[in-house]
């Protein structure tokens, strides 16, 4: 008997499944939600470019998602994606990478892309750790946690990356968890359909290299915690800093319309080409 075929296998490089994520890892769920989102809004994956950096979640598009893929150096996917988007504005360019990649080594590209409002969708899988290299402290690791490079305890506070991106000037920012898959999926669809820089921070689990250090040994433990700790952004607005400590604020954090970078860039070019043509006609 041949094995049943998943309807979304059309969107993944089926020949290399099963994927190599650890058991219970959130990256698989994100890949699942992402393919659902692409299918849901009827995006042609032939007109997509997925860009990623180095790290476990960078494997979601590279190699698993089946589209043109650019698997880049550590921390630089947004910079590479900028080159792609600027030259091919007709393609949907999606960056999927981890917290260490996007907000650690690549933090500068993140805030600058947000400021420019370039039409990229950045989905940051935040598992609060450097998973691929074996569990080092990440800029998103909460204070007090023991990791391989903070064996005694982490003395640095964690980045609230989505909030930082709001401060940097992004036009669409949301935060979800791998438990909230339906709204996550919807949010991804929004992000990919709109113009401008959109950023979704996806709180995700790494049972292997993070969970076992904080007593959450399985994916299930994490999902339970996400369910408990999550609080909708509208509710959170009325709460104090202390009350929000240790909670995960989920939902859409910002959604504003601003001129999009590539569109503006092309306007400049079109104007200058026309001016030059006019100059020639004048001479003629």
């Amino acid at each position: 008997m041949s094995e049943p075929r998943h309807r979304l296998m059309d969107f993944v490089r089926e020949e290399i499944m099963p994927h190599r994520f650890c058991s219970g890892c959130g990256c698989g769920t994100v890949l699942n939600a992402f393919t659902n989102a692409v299918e849901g809004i009827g995006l042609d994956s032939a007109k997509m470019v997925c860009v990623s950096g180095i790290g476990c979640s960078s494997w979601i598009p590279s190699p698993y998602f089946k589209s043109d893929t650019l698997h880049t150096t550590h921390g630089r996917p947004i910079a590479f994606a900028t080159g792609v988007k600027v030259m091919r504005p007709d393609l949907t360019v999606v960056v999927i990478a981890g917290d260490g990649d996007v907000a650690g080594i690549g933090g500068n590209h993140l805030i600058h892309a947000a400021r420019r409002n370039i039409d990229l969708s950045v989905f940051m899988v935040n598992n609060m750790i450097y998973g691929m290299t074996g569990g080092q402290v990440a800029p998103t690791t909460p204070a007090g946690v023991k990791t391989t490079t903070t064996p005694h305890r982490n003395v640095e506070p964690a980045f609230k990356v989505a909030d930082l991106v709001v401060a940097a000037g992004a036009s669409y920012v949301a935060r979800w968890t791998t438990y909230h898959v339906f709204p996550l999926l919807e949010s991804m669809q929004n992000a990919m359909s709109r113009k401008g820089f959109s950023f979704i921070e996806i709180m995700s689990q790494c049972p292997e290299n993070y969970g076992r250090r904080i007593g959450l040994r399985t994916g299930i433990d994490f999902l339970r915690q996400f369910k408990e700790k999550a609080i909708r952004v509208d509710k959170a607005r009325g709460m104090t800093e202390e009350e929000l400590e240790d909670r995960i604020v989920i939902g859409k954090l910002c959604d504003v319309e601003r001129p999009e970078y590539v569109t503006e860039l092309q306007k400049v070019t079109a104007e200058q080409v026309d001016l030059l043509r006019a100059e020639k006609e004048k001479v003629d």
Partner: protein
Amino acid sequence: MFRKAKHIREKYLEENMWPSIFCQACGIGTVLNCALRAIDKVKLDIDQTVFVSGIGCSSRLPGYIDADGLHTTHGRAITFATGIKLAKPELNVIVFTGDGDLAGIGGNHFIHAARRNIDMTVICVNNYNYGMTGAQLSPTTPLGGIATTSPYGNIESPFDLSALAIGAGAPYVAKWTTIYPHETMTAIKDGIEKKGFAFIEILAPCPEGYGRRNKLNQGKDNLLWFKKNSIGKSRYEKLSEEEKRACDKIVIGKLNDIDKPEFTAEWSKLVDKHFVE
């Protein structure tokens, strides 16, 4: 006792280096002036103070001060400063930087140091462009601003550096312009006294670079522009929601001042706990 009687210039400046390379009416000198007076006011031990900078006009400042100075690579001043502070926590570390150095090439170090909350004072002279290399577009150039690499007007939204610092977690953030030197000085003083990462953004004129290309030719035009286009935080907060939305002025003042655990202090605790005799 004798030193006290001296003019601020004789007291702190490296006499062989002054006068500076700064152009006429450049705001960087004013910032240095304010900073030195703030240092004098808090009676900072200059022997126990290191000035760190990156590359750019404002990064030349440590060279003019008669104290330990580290003039580093472009955008990386904060990382060198981090090393100094952690290796010798009793030192006062003051970073002079510009908008391009701090938030352009060095943006990542900036947000991470703010997050980490390492005890240092970062004084950023924001002059809206890369002055030293010849007035290129910077991440703070206003929309429509002309720079040599945006000859047709800037189309990128600029950073609000102070907002970014707050967003990244900096406990002390203030923004002023050189037209308000007393407030600038006070802000720097507060920043030095703050235990933690203190960020002071100072909008300053660059008449030769940005000014010349944007009809703010003279330093004073630039200063007046800052005066006209800024609004104090307390006044801003009194505006109604609607007025706030309509207000396109730059909000200046002390923008953030909270207390949170500081890195070297936390590390000190950690060492005390795990130290092996």
